[in-house]
């Protein structure tokens, strides 16, 4: 199953061949083929337990599939790990925020680890972009779950990575925040990036035909 084959002149950013995934002896998906190009926004859909998170984790290289390969720029991701991870930003269910560090410290560490440029001034700016003005120096353990999520989403504003893989980015985010994020996605794909995400909400700022969909369902054969 391919998402977009129209622009076959430029090689796809990510391509997946014959992907099979088994979790707890259950077949989640079988022989999946996907191509994702620069400028794509891809929404992975499916009922609970259909393997959405597993697919995103396999795409990001965190999990190994039962069978099949994931390519980045036509190279196996296991063989071009450093290049791939330099161009990848993955946000999972867990925000990856340490309670013992302040919001600013958390963001600064995550950005530096990822190799994104940052200094005290633009950290403050970035945090204000996700509505955390005034919370820069409070320890993350004093903040709410939604604020944790926003600390981790703040990285999107400074990210130099082309590929964004986001697992339920809108949970615990208010309507206004969702809108801001969608605008951010739009800017990102315009710059030649791609976004792969799971969400139960519809992406309102996008035209329906603009969003590529991958629908997962229970498979038995």
């Amino acid at each position: 199953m391919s998402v977009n084959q129209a622009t076959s002149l430029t090689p796809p950013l990510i391509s997946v061949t014959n992907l099979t995934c088994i979790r707890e002896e259950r077949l989640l998906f079988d022989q999946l083929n996907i191509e994702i190009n620069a400028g794509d926004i891809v929404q992975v859909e499916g009922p609970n337990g259909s393997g959405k998170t597993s697919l995103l984790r396999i795409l990001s290289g965190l999990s190994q599939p039962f069978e099949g390969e994931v390519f980045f720029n036509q190279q196996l991701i296991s063989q071009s790990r450093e290049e791939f991870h330099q161009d990848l930003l993955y946000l999972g269910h867990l925000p990856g925020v340490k309670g013992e560090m302040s919001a600013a410290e958390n963001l600064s560490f995550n950005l530096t680890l990822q190799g994104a440029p940052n200094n005290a001034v633009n950290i403050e700016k970035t945090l204000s972009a996700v509505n955390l003005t005034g919370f820069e120096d409070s320890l993350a353990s004093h903040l709410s779950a939604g604020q944790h999520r926003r600390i981790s989403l703040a990285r999107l504003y400074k990210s130099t990575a082309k590929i964004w893989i986001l697992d339920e980015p809108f949970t615990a985010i208010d309507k206004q925040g969702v809108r801001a994020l969608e605008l951010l996605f739009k800017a990102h794909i315009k710059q030649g990036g791609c976004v792969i995400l799971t969400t139960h909400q519809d992406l309102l700022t996008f035209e329906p035909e603009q969003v590529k969909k991958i629908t997962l369902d229970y498979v038995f054969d």
Partner: protein
Amino acid sequence: MWKWLHPYANPEVSYHFTGKILPWLGALATLFLSIGIIWALAFAPADYQQGDSFRIFYVHVPAASLSMGIYFGMAIAAFTSMVWQFKLADASAAAMAPVGAIFTAIALITGAAWGKPMWGTWWIWDARLTSELILLFLYLGVIALHNAFEDKNLAGKAAGILTLVGVINLPIIKYSVEWWNTLHQGSTVSKLGKPSMSIDMLWPFVFCFIGFALLVATIICIRFRSEILTRNSIRPWVRTLVSEHLSKHIAQEKNNAI
């Protein structure tokens, strides 16, 4: 070089192949073991020093060397699976671990039962015994790790890492205990003169050793087949095999009822 091995790397082929050789392995193991054990217990001469307690030798030594051998095999399997992503190797390693653990336990228990009358103690913290005990712990760790993961493929990989770390650890432990507690000071504390084992004691040992080795191979084969099935449960060939097996089973039960 690996080409000729390729057909056996297929789970289906190896499942059927092991199924074919299994009865032969079992029969040979029974043959060798029954000859060996009866010979060892009733016909082999008693040792001049140790009397009849020496007969424990015929279980103890094969069990001890097989316990090491199985671990070595497991390590090779772990290595192959790590380097060549060879899934059957994981299955075989998982099949070997419990067998190795049981044989290590046998070596330890028979060793203790032999040591009590001979050395005057059930247990000595010497190099061989301690490293054998650590070997048992390593086996138990590997088994526990296998059971701790739901996903059998992950379990295999995790256990493989532990197995390889253990391989480095075993000689270190053996050596460390030799230094720490020098009861086995090689040539100096052993008896002088070198009479080798007499031939009528050696033959039953050969039979016992081959018999135990074949028995180990048989049990590993049985377990290996179950491991292949669990790891390939979504494959069509397993599906047909299972449904055939179950329908046969049901038919048999009906026959029994009539």
